[in-house]
């Protein structure tokens, strides 16, 4: 991995005292390659390298007995810092019911995550209501209903209504049935689909959405930046959930998404079961990205 490659690089550079500009480039190139292989976006990598450049070839590295390890530590610290430093807890403040709207590309894991969030917050004493706002995908409503049933958490669904109306009706229902938390599961959509992005905007105009969360697949490649940027520009997301982290994707998309939106990654999805949700830890993710 990067550790071995940097060790080899420093072996070659050892005993030269000060690093030449070419040597500096070589060390940084290894870091750049590792990040690109981990699916961090090309432009994000460029910005990141510029950020760590000075430290990565400065005093603390050159005077170290283990310069390769020192570079790794610096890179890892910077990655962690860039992804928010420490875990972020979503707080519920103000007047309930709190509406959480999940959105994202097709197949990213929204419906599954809706169930996980409902269970997670129910354990913390909330009374969640799941809302089926995906009226397009075959059996999407049924999918959420099956998820809700398995968790004994109610699912609000309406036949033949558009998602904006469903969200509004769900809010009324929640108030009348003492639910303090509403989780809107929306249809997967492309960030370049003006009509469907408009639908999300209309939902936010119609009901007071407390938090808008973008659900992103951890194996997403270079496109993560474009997707996150477009969603953020259109509906101002509050946070991100990274799914399918139980696989072996390095997850560079985490850095890309955080980098371009400035919004925190709140949770990670680690499996298909309803308990496979963990608070996101930037430091663990940094280590994983470096591989």
């Amino acid at each position: 991995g990067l550790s071995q490659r940097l060790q080899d690089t420093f072996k070659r550079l050892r005993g030269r005292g000060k690093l030449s500009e070419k040597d500096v480039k070589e060390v940084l190139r290894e870091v750049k390659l590792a990040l690109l292989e981990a699916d961090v976006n090309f432009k994000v990598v460029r910005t990141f390298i510029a950020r760590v450049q000075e430290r990565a070839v400065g005093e603390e590295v050159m005077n170290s007995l283990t310069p390769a390890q020192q570079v790794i530590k610096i890179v890892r610290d910077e990655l962690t810092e860039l992804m928010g430093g420490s875990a972020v807890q979503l707080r519920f403040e103000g007047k309930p019911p709190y509406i959480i709207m999940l959105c994202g590309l097709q197949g990213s894991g929204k419906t599954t995550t809706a169930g996980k969030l409902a269970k997670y917050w129910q354990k913390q004493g909330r009374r969640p209501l799941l809302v089926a706002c995906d009226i397009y995908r075959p059996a999407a409503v049924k999918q959420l209903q099956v998820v809700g049933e398995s968790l004994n958490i109610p699912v609000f669904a309406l036949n033949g209504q558009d998602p904006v109306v469903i969200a509004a009706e769900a809010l009324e229902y929640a108030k009348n049935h003492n639910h303090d938390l509403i989780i809107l599961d929306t249809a997967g959509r492309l960030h370049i689909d003006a009509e469907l992005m408009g639908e999300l905007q209309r939902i936010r105009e119609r009901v007071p959405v407390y938090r808008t969360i973008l659900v992103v697949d951890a194996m997403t490649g270079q496109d993560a930046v474009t997707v996150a940027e477009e969603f953020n520009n259109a509906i101002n997301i509050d946070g991100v959930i990274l799914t399918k982290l139980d696989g072996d994707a390095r997850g560079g998309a985490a850095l890309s998404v955080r980098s371009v939106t400035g919004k925190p990654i709140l949770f990670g999805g680690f499996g298909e079961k309803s308990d496979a949700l963990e608070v996101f830890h930037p430091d663990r993710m940094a280590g994983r990205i470096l591989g």
Partner: protein
Amino acid sequence: MTEELYEELEAILIQADLGVEASVGLVETLRQRAKAEKIKAAEELRWLLKDELKKLIGEPGVLIKNPSGPTVVMIVGVNGTGKTTSVGKLAYHLAEQGQKVVLGAADTFRAAAIEQLEIWGERAGAAVIRHQMGSDPAAVAFDAVQAGLSRRADYILIDTAGRLHTQTNLMQELEKVGRVIGRAMDGAPHEILLVVDATTGQNALNQAKLFAKAVPITGIILTKLDGTAKGGIVAAVVNTLRVPVKFIGIGEGVEDLKPFDTEAFVEAIFD
């Protein structure tokens, strides 16, 4: 020929998810060709690169047709890539061509997976063979093949549950489904298509390698090309598995499955 130009081209490839190794390799080949062919113009260089990329990705493949009896197609891949939707689209496309299609709902795990495929079956006019949620996927696949044989279907498409290539037990399950299909009919499955999401980065290569260890992949379906992702990872997948890309998914509707076109795919990378 400036160094900047080569770097620019390398950046395009990397941002298309071709991967660092493949991108660097292609640009290196480009440098050598440019030198050998005395290339002077930037447009010529770009054309050469497209040419090399087309060679790397290879020709499109076509859906296998069993000359004697139904053709059994198994659809596999990690979670959420578009398998069920692609099965539905393929069924529709085949039915439009007058082929008789039977579907096997072998995802017995995920909530409403069976119901989802049943709706696609209705759209395509294809019978759906199913059991209960939680039943043995191999048993469903077996029954689907048997049903296809007795009904003299032209195609039997088996939808399987999404699974991560790192889940050993689920990869073993997939292997078993493949074997059981072979017991229902000699030589089946005739086609095993790996569904890859175009938004996927380098992980698609790991996916391809491990899925190919479990079952003999014969082709790729690259989905969600209607987004902004270029799907460049498919180049590495094709070269590692030595199988062609057969179809692309360009949307969520019945008509949104097209035969792969290498030229159009490469052009889109440079758009």
